[in-house]
């Protein structure tokens, strides 16, 4: 116990300030501009892997480390789309995940936002479109913000999330 406390005390606070939103990442402006008014700055995210290589997942997980301190910015990941305000979707949407993604989107209450993460989510990436894969996320559900990168850094993903909830 003493070692644990000493460790916590010796590291101190290492969280970095949140980046500014980046309007260049915006794909479309949603018709309902109410999301900021409804949510304030509290945001619940449901992540959906629609067929990624798991590279983007590593960076989404990194958002939770003490440097990026996602929860310190009032943002957290939730276990069900029914609790979510925003879907963070990775990968090209593969055929075997198309239905699961559509159902997850339908289960997310309005107003909601969708952020497509990574080159595959933005354009289909190196995997492209083929009989087994439908390509970019916007081919299957409406996308508000898309952040490229293979994988995009945690800072870029956070910027995309903050852009999506800006009215």
């Amino acid at each position, binding site marked *: 116990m003493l*070692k*644990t406390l000493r*460790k*916590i005390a010796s*590291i101190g606070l*290492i969280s970095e300030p949140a980046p500014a939103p980046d309007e260049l990442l915006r794909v479309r402006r949603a018709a309902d501009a109410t999301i900021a008014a409804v949510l304030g700055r509290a945001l619940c995210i449901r*992540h*959906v*892997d*629609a*067929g*990624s*290589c*798991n*590279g*983007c*997942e*590593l*960076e*989404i*997980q*990194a958002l*939770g*480390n*003490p*440097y990026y301190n996602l929860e310190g910015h009032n943002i957290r*990941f939730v*276990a*069900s*789309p029914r609790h979510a305000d925003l879907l963070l979707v990775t*990968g*090209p949407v*593969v*055929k*075997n*995940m198309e239905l*699961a993604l559509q159902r*997850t989107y339908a289960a997310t209450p309005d107003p909601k936002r969708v952020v497509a993460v990574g080159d595959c989510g933005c354009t289909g990436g*190196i*995997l*492209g479109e*083929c*009989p*087994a*894969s439908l390509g970019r996320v916007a081919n299957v559900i409406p996308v508000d913000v898309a952040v490229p990168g*293979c*994988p995009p*850094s945690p800072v870029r993903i956070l910027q995309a999330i903050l852009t999506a909830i800006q009215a």
Partner: protein
Amino acid sequence: MPLRRWWDRAQPVTGAPHVRGLGVGTEDWLQVARDVAAAGGVLHALWMSCAAMGDHAVQERIVYGAYLTDTGVLIVELTLPAAATQTYPGLEGIFPAAARMQRAAHDLSGIRSSDPDARPWLNHDRPYEFVRVDGEGVHEIAVGPVHAGTIEPGHFRFSVVGEKVLKLEERLGYTHKGLEQRFTALPILQGHRLAARVSGDSAVAYSWAYCQALEGMSGRAIPPRAAWLRAVCLELERLANHLGDLGALGNDVGFAFGLTQFSRLKEDLLRAMAAVFGERYLFDIIVPGGVAIDVSAAAAGALADVVRAVCTETEELRDIYDEHEGVRDRFTGAGRLEPERAARLGVIGLVGRASGQARDVRVDLPDAPYTELPVAMVVEHDGDVASRVAVRFGEVRESGRLLTSLLSALPDGMHAVEVGVPADGAFGVGLIEGWRGPVLVALQAGPSGSIRRCHPHDPSWQNWPALEYAIMGNIVPDFPLINKSFNLSYSGVDL
């Protein structure tokens, strides 16, 4: 016939050291498998010449098996007659891991093995029947494909009584994206980029295995400096993944402190990697002929300092984990995979080493620089979550030691050389011990710099079925912990 006789008849295959290929007929296909099993070898991979569903362009239909044995990797080729109804003898009775590989191969090629379990695997358009457990009070819990955490999609069907798990059945294939077909559309000198994305957490292992196969086919040896820098990348990848897992395992037993500390250390390491290579996960750093970026002496020194600091702190955290009664209580005895069962299931890699299966490509079949830099294999025998944690702690220490040696004595010379296009029909195999276990890439060249066929193979194929055994008799709330202690790839097997 003892394995030695098959090995002596086989022809050398280019790429990784100690790989040989052998063409057999249907009658010998099973016999080779039996002889490999008798000699203590395991089936690593099974695939077919067809790369995609409905791929009728491939006239010649070949089933490939890759065995890991004490003498080396034996690739066995079974060429099937053109008749459409032809089946081939299934290996599932000898190597249980073959079952899913054969079902996946059937979905892609339309050619069935003799296994009576003819359910689809990658093809989700066809109906699927789970194995039902009957009895008083038995009910099912269905989980996925969309999971509660930031992880990949898959479906788990638990049959339980109260909290106790009687049976788990996995249904994977959700991230099947036609990866093998995609390879055939890329120039062979560009395929390493797709290989790195078979399973993003093993980018270095896959791109190295791909390049190893390609360089063998082109007859181009890489300079020593390139080999050493590749090993630096591979050990960094191992370190980063182990740190992430150690934190997540702490979190899964309610010790959030562990996640906070290990995720901090992992981020420190990733930033140091990005400072040197420009990539946090080293995507596209391993390229045909060497590595994309050379490392200055100053950068190597700075990286070594971070590695040392991270490893020193990991030892402190190991003490904290070891002394924490709650953590110890949850780790010990959970998700036990006994050594005998691990051997029977052919479990490999990290999970295998935690169940007494002492295999590590870096030790058993080393390529440069591991030929000059012996690796101390970390093996545990209890096969529970605590053992898989202990193997990770041990490998963090060992990778730290290797990195210190590698970075302090990088050979002079070039970090990359040109690699030519291999001849049409050339075949090569790469085999690299990634953080999860051995990663195999079988590559065949097509005409004028194209890829005829590329099959990347993840150790998760063997280890997913073992998870179904490890969870038996445990309680449902321990599944996330046990699953994380395996930490298998979905993308790597769904392809």
